[in-house]
């Protein structure tokens, strides 16, 4: 049986991991397993930018993906970037196997507020669904409440929900049937 592997990378709260696993199973209808933690490779670190290159991390994830993995989605506490952009909340191979979500900019502390586990969990779930949606061929959605909408700042991210909108749900089913 094929599974979705949820990979913790760095300091990730086990409660958040468990909520994310439940949310993925509920949304995509595929069994999810939380794998052993994985180290973020040091060579993906850019000392000038003080960030980690998500492309290199995705490559490593792909290399180490278990045989029974249908999809692999990692959650990291490191701040991620791709060369042209100043940061990304997450990154996934479109219609591919591996994706990653960073919680570095999802924490309230990043914006100068006291830590809030509930807010962090909600934000993480939205981004995990978003990146996994890309793995299943979903593009950005124009419905601002759908997790598949593009969020380029935390205000936009907070505006959206965790549950896929009807059209994205339909597209997801079609995409899954095609495979």
């Amino acid at each position: 049986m094929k599974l979705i592997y949820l990979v913790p990378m760095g300091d990730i709260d086990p409660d958040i991991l468990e909520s994310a696993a439940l949310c993925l199973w509920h949304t995509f209808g595929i069994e999810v397993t939380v794998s052993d933690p994985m180290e973020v490779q040091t060579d993906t670190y850019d000392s000038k930018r003080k960030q980690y290159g998500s492309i290199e991390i995705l490559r490593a994830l792909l290399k180490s993906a278990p045989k029974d993995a249908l999809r692999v989605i990692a959650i990291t506490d490191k701040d991620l970037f791709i060369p042209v952009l100043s940061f990304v909340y997450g990154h996934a191979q479109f219609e591919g196997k591996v994706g990653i979500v960073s919680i570095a900019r999802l924490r309230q502390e990043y914006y100068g507020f006291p830590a809030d586990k509930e807010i962090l969990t909600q934000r993480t779930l939205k981004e995990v669904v978003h990146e996994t949606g890309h793995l299943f061929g979903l593009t950005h959605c124009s419905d601002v409440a759908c997790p598949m909408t593009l969020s380029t700042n935390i205000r936009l991210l907070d505006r959206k929900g965790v549950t896929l909108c009807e059209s994205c749900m339909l597209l997801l089913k079609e995409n899954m049937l095609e495979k």
Partner: protein
Amino acid sequence: MRKNWEILVVDDEEIACESLAAWLREDGYPTDIALSGQEAINKAKEKEYALYFVDLKMPGGPDGIETMMHIRNIYPDASVIIITAHATVDTAITALKEGAQEYLVKPINPEEISLLVDRIIKVKNLQRQNILLRKKLTRQYSFHDIISKNQKMHDIFQLIRDIASLKSTVLIQGESGTGKELVARAIHYSGDRAKKPFVSVSCAALAETLLESELFGHEKGSFTGAGSRKKGKFELADGGTIFLDEIGDISQKLQMDLLRVIQEKKFYRVGGSEEINVDVRVIAATNKDLMKAVKAGEFREELYYRLNVINIQIPPLRERREDIPLLVRHFVDQISHELNKDINDITENAMRVLMDYNWPGNVRELENTIERAIVTCKSDVLSEEDFTFISRAREMDEDWTVPTNESLQNVEQRVIEATLRRFEGNIKETASVLGIDRSTLYEKIKKYDIPRYKKEETIEKE
């Protein structure tokens, strides 16, 4: 709508190129990549992209700005965003001066890039919608190249449909430049004769003997210079339509000959004895009041009634001002395309100038005015400044008061001089606006000894 717009990302660093492209694909835009300026130029030659992200520094070939210039050479409207990790004021100025839509410094905030792409695509969608709506509007208001939403013109369109397949002669009357020939063509091409020839003759352009030979043809040696037999326009139009423009200017003898052809459908070539039979529909046109000419004995009454079986009066442009915006937009699109200029709009103020003007030379004058403005326009939108020559002409009109202490000849001379000046010595336009044929204008220039126009002279006077 996103799927309709493709994006090209150009960067010699594959990882940067591919990751931005992947990010844009996730946003729903089909995105291609090019790993060098040359590859980007080749790809742009194959198809047009809605948006180009081009890295500034690409060694070993055209850099970002050169690549952009090549692309904008192919597509002057191309939206190019230059991206760089090494920003300098100089490169930013050069990029924007050469037409870059934006100049972004890496790393770019995702929000900035997302808003920028949305904004550019929104404008592209609006432009596309605008073009479609304009085309729809022109189609809705056009009939065989005649564009109008005026009720009188639409009555004429209906009349044309009704009479198109009849054999009856038609007399089209209207001021110079109102489109009499277009109406004649519309009649021909709407009827049974559409696949047969449409032959147009300007009666005022030729001397009497030449016109006779032009209309009826001639036999070899029938007059000096007639080296061979030549078919006339009536024979060439057999089965189709002959359009006799400026019919009010033909001589009494030709009036007789024409009357005979219309009545008997046969004629002789000049110097010939063989009777030629033709099946030709006659459509005549004039900007003169033919009835007045009949009363003055200058035009044969029988011919007038033979020609005037169906009468079409085309209103002057000043009586259908609602058509001016439609015509202006049509001419802007058509002429800027013909002249390969990138002009796609006109400001409201400029349109107001055109709406307020009286257009004595009607649609033809409007077309020439737009052409002149497009030729001299420096931006991509026609503005009021591009039509200052109209304001000057209008001021001259307004300044003019009817003189009460001058001979009629003096007044005529002054009017001819002023009109020649206005059209920069163009005989055709001057004659057209004055409502006389070119030969008459030449006679009057000679009679009053009016010097030929010189541009510098006029500028000094103005």
